[in-house]
């Protein structure tokens, strides 16, 4: 038993962290919050591609470095910590694993090398009507053509390809690859809560949909579980950064003759943030291992990681605003960046309520 990272994994954290620290700053995030014409930080994306970081979860034969879920988790935390504004999560936590696990050779060759090299932006369109697949799906595929609406879709406005959840003729859920630049696709930009991560509505009216064989309801659920674990690492990174920013401010800002961090009402809240983050981290560690080793407790691990990460992230974001006082309420200050990214990561895979139910159902005792 070993519940820590290896030296190689620590080295990945350090190298990725350095690259991200140099290229993804909070100032940069503010700029993209105000104006985001390309939809993401293109410079950073190219640098990550050049450094091979986009292929970390993709097998070597398809242009990646074929590392495991734990390595991907290490990178995810760094991305969350630096608030990197890139179309990473959907591509790496959902699309790539779906294609690796269920794609044909042709589908893999067409897509995976392009993801690893950063040439193609891909996204996953799993949300509809406020719900998420496989629980909520109304889009339909018939005769290889898809009809339906998916919204909100992260990076839906500029992605080249989307992995779309839809029902087949018999009403069974499945996953399909759809070329968003082709016919039968309409995209509409939405007002994203986190404008550094733009959202779109995709309307499909007879667009060609290329099925991933075997990606049934259970497979979709498993993919979403895996994604929840990796997103939990982003949330932990994000909440940890909020705590760091709050701690720095609490040491600097003075009131009544001393730093506000000397007052227990502030310092105890910082300690609570810390405890929530570390609790989530412990669950996320178990999740990363369960994902990497395809353990039978994956569903339970994912729900535990997700629930504690959601809690840590929301608490850290909200208290970061409070600890900053008036400046925390301003657009130009950093605190709302954490809150906005927090809601983005929450909405991506659905709120705590659905994960609580998933957890109860995943427990052996919970299946009454």
């Amino acid at each position, binding site marked *: 038993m070993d519940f820590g990272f290896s030296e190689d994994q620590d080295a990945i954290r350090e190298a990725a962290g350095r690259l991200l620290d140099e290229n993804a700053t909070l100032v940069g995030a503010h700029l993209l919050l105000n104006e985001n014409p390309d939809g993401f930080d293109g410079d950073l994306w190219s640098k990550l591609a050049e450094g091979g970081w986009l292929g970390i979860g993709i097998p070597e034969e398809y242009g990646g470095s074929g590392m495991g879920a734990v390595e991907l988790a290490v990178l995810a935390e760094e991305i969350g910590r630096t608030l990197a504004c890139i179309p990473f999560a959907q591509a790496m936590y959902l699309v790539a694993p779906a294609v690796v696990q269920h794609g044909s050779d042709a589908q893999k060759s067409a897509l995976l090398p392009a993801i690893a090299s950063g040439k193609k932006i891909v996204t996953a369109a799993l949300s509809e009507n406020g719900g998420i697949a496989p629980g909520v799906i109304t889009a339909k595929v018939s005769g290889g053509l898809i009809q339906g609406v998916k919204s909100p879709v992260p990076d839906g406005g500029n992605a080249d390809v989307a992995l779309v959840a839809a029902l087949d003729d018999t009403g069974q859920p499945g996953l399909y690859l759809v070329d968003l630049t082709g016919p039968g696709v309409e995209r509409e930009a939405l007002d994203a809560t986190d404008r550094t991560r733009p959202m779109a509505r995709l309307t499909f009216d007879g667009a060609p949909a290329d099925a991933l064989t075997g990606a049934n309801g259970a497979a979709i659920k498993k993919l979403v579980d895996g994604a929840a674990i990796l997103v939990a690492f982003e949330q932990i990174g994000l909440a940890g950064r909020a705590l760091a920013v709050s701690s720095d401010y609490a040491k600097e800002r003075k009131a009544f003759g001393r730093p506000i961090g000397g007052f227990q009402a502030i310092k105890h809240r910082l*300690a609570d943030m810390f405890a929530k983050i570390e609790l989530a981290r412990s669950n996320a560690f178990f999740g990363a291992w369960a994902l990497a080793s395809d353990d039978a407790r994956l569903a339970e691990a994912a729900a*535990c990681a997700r629930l*504690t990460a959601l809690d840590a992230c929301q608490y850290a974001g909200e208290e970061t605003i409070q600890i900053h006082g008036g400046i925390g309420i301003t657009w130009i200050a950093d605190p709302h960046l954490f809150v906005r990214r927090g809601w983005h990561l929450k909405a991506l895979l659905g709120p705590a309520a659905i994960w609580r139910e998933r957890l109860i159902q995943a427990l052996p005792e919970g299946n009454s």
Partner: protein
Amino acid sequence: MDFNDTSAEADFRAKVRAWLDDNATLRDGSKTTQDTFMAHNPDQVVQAGKWQKQKADAGWAGITWPKEYGGMGGTPMQQVVWNQEEGRYRVPPFAHLVGVALVGPTLMVHGTEKQKADILPGLLAGDGIWCQLFSEPAAGSDLAGVRTRAKRDGDTWEITGQKVWTSGAHYSQHGLLLARTNPDVPKHKGMTMFIVDMNDPAIEARPITQISGAESFNEVFIDGLKVSDANRVGEVDGGWRVALTTLMNERLTLSVGRAVGGAKTEELIDLAKRVQLNGRPAIEDGEVRARIADFTARQRGLEFTSYRIMTSLSRGQEPGVEGSIGKLLLGRLRQEMSGFALELMGSSAAIADTSDAESLRWRNEYMTAPGNRVSGGADEIQRNIIAERILGMPVDIRVDKDVPFRDL
């Protein structure tokens, strides 16, 4: 990262299991809870001593202890394996915790060679139960306020004063006692640590009834107790350093050993299946499911946190940031969970039905959980520790820091 046993750990687990199978009885599957220690039941103390001795004879009592002190010289992970396995059996409560987990490690760091050789092996073998005589009426969170006075006369010390909240003092044979030896210097600098004989007539322990109805802690009166200087631990006036070692081990024990202690969420599910709420089994109620799910996620997080601590120890590192949160989160979780269980019982929560072990159990859990939030450093003190030592916040204002103790 690997949550599976290595092959060596699997072998070790098999050996542990085989021994436990031969020497103890498995628990009833869903009832994973440790029996709570009702100290007014002297039989439990006897059983605990027997079990400790049995473990020591077979070599399991001090898995991570060095061999020279009767330990196994094993790894922290082997300790995790042992704890997991022992937790599956009906065994007496761990009455020897203070000795094995607090006093032992303290003596290993601060004891003389003779103290280590004389005391440590017997301590593991359950030769006596130890208690921790630190807190006093005027010294709890602010432990450096101890007033119990030790005065030196040649090679003998004479100790007089009062301790309080001393767990197990009424059935302990030995105690580790923190006393004031120099009131002319600031409070942290004038204390010394001693080993005392609890059977000495100069010590009187009076059990205090707790909110759970149990009597597990005491007030302890010490009147002219003579202690040889050979039983001093650490330097004269250096008691604070010794106490810090004990307290660090206490925090760690309360984070690791008991992180999986208390009631399990599986038991809560079990309860929710049996009781009715709004005309249907409570387990079908959305709010009930949601609460249990949140408790489960927190409980799993604490379990994995304790494994992270053990990993740090295995790698020869000080337990890092993860070492401080278990103690803070566990008491609150136990309190909320048991409170929710009582709520599920509806109007039955107002009574404890002696024919229904369940109702007694949850009430007992609810009435013992608050102690978890106070003992070993209250929640507020844990938050200060995290904020000041880990996050670097300015320390609280301490008006008495540089003032000689006698002028406070």
